């Protein structure tokens, strides 16, 4: 699983930074984005193994990221995180074939475990 590519999209810069710090310690390759547009541009050029995205963002939101990723690369796993601990949002996200759903504040260990599971499948 060394060098496997993870993308983190969140308009809170610290989320990306901290996820990158933690995941890189485990030997993942991590790229971070502050909003959906450049992230999707990047995805069009290159496939990532796991995309971790915030649900609520200005412009292209997490749901649109999920749809685009699934269209481009059906095997890529998407993990959704959000500040809204909202059941409706979670259900909608899961229906859209999301791998996992994390309400903020995110437990980094749980996130890492979830990413591991995503890659094992």
């Amino acid at each position, binding site marked *: 699983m060394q060098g496997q590519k993870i993308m983190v999209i969140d*308009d*809170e810069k*610290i*989320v990306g930074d*901290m*996820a990158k*710090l*933690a995941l890189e*310690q485990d030997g993942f390759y991590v790229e971070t984005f502050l909003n959906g547009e450049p992230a999707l541009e990047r995805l069009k050029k290159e496939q990532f193994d796991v995309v971790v995205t915030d649900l609520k*963002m*200005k412009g292209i939101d997490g749901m649109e990221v999920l749809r685009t990723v699934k269209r481009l690369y059906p095997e890529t796993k998407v993990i959704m995180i959000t*500040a*809204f*601990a909202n059941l409706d949002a979670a259900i909608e996200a899961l229906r859209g074939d999301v791998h996992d759903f994390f309400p*903020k*504040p*995110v*437990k*980094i*260990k749980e996130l890492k475990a979830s990413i591991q599971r995503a890659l094992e499948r």
Partner: protein
Amino acid sequence: MKIENKIILSNVFNIGLILLIGFFAMQNLNLMLTKLRFVEIADDLNASFLEMRLSEKNYFLYHDESALLDIKEKIDSTEKSIAPVSNDISRAIGQQNLDLLKAHLSEYSEAIDEVKTNISHDVRIDAKLRAKGRGLREFSNTITSLERKGVNHIISRSKNVLFYSFWAILASAVIVSHFISQRILRSLREIQRLAKSISQGNFHKIEGNMPADEFGTVIAAINSMSEELRNREEELIQSKKLASLGILTAGVAHELTNPLNNISMIAQNYQEFYDVLSEANRIELMKKIEGEAERIEEIVRNLLDFSKPKEAKLEEKDINETVRKSLELMQNTLDISNVEVSTELGQGLPRVYIDDHQIQQVLVNLIVNAVHAMEHGGVLKLATRAGEEGQTVKVDVIDTGKGIAPEFLSHIFDPFFSTKGVGGTGLGLSVSYGIIKNHKGNIRVDSTVGAGTTFTIELPVYNKSTGFIADE
């Protein structure tokens, strides 16, 4: 007095007037009938007197003694015919004239008697008889003609009385109904004004003296309706406040979750990778935690500002001065932005009754929003002008920025509603709204996506006696 009573009273007045006129007309008619009756009697008398004089002439021409007896007989029959109608005659020509008539008759009778005894045919006695006969006839003629004139006078007087009273009744009816209808219309207009003001949401009670008529009852009904509406409105406001509280709570949760999550993730990594991290890394992470804590602090401070609006210290102020001070406060921000500033401050505007600092806070909020909306440059215009009817002063904050989408417009004053994403707390406009409402003012927004946004603040004009000109 009730309008109903007024109408009844005016009708009673007119009917009274008509009765009075009828009474006078009857009086005149009676008088006229009496006089006519006398004229009839007088005609008979005149005929008798004429016959007497004819007999008198016969006597003088032919010295026929029987003529004198004729006259005597006629005098007797005349006196007899006067006796039963003497009351009527007295009423028509007065007792005095009646007595005079009787005197003339008896003098004439005496003169006849004298002539009868005057065998020597004394010329003077004859002359006396002639004079008495002429006198009787003339007196009777004069009185008859006077009475005819009297009848004519009464007729023309009745005509005049009827003519003028017709106009008097007409005028009284027209004037009274005009006044009553004016009164009704005035009250109706007042009620119309009240209804309009209620429809505009002013549910205040009508104070002062209630008119004691039907409109007083209507106004009392409107008052109780108004009070009911006010109670309902308060309930509505209360439920809206609860709804706002819901939005507020959700907003607080969301706003706080992001910095809390950031602190939490930093702290997790700090523990997990303490050994791996350099000292500089560790300090950098702690600084980030501090920054996020400050973010939370700001949210809490804004929240306190929002939940406990400071008591406004209202003073009489020149709005242009407040606008200038707000621009000075924002000078640095404006200098480093791409925004060009223009002002159009109205001259000779009435003074407003405001808390200078709070209104500055509102203007600063609006200016900050405008600058954010014009990231790629634009023009910020601040304008002041007098409101409609001179009771308010308006301040426009106009930007040529990206505008607000129509679906967001109705939410921009909701707490925690923000279009700025991470950049805003979503409290600025909501706090501003509270401040302006505290000033009994209004804040409105008008926006076109791609063309810009105009915020208009409306503040009440200062009034010496009440503070607010439009005090409720």
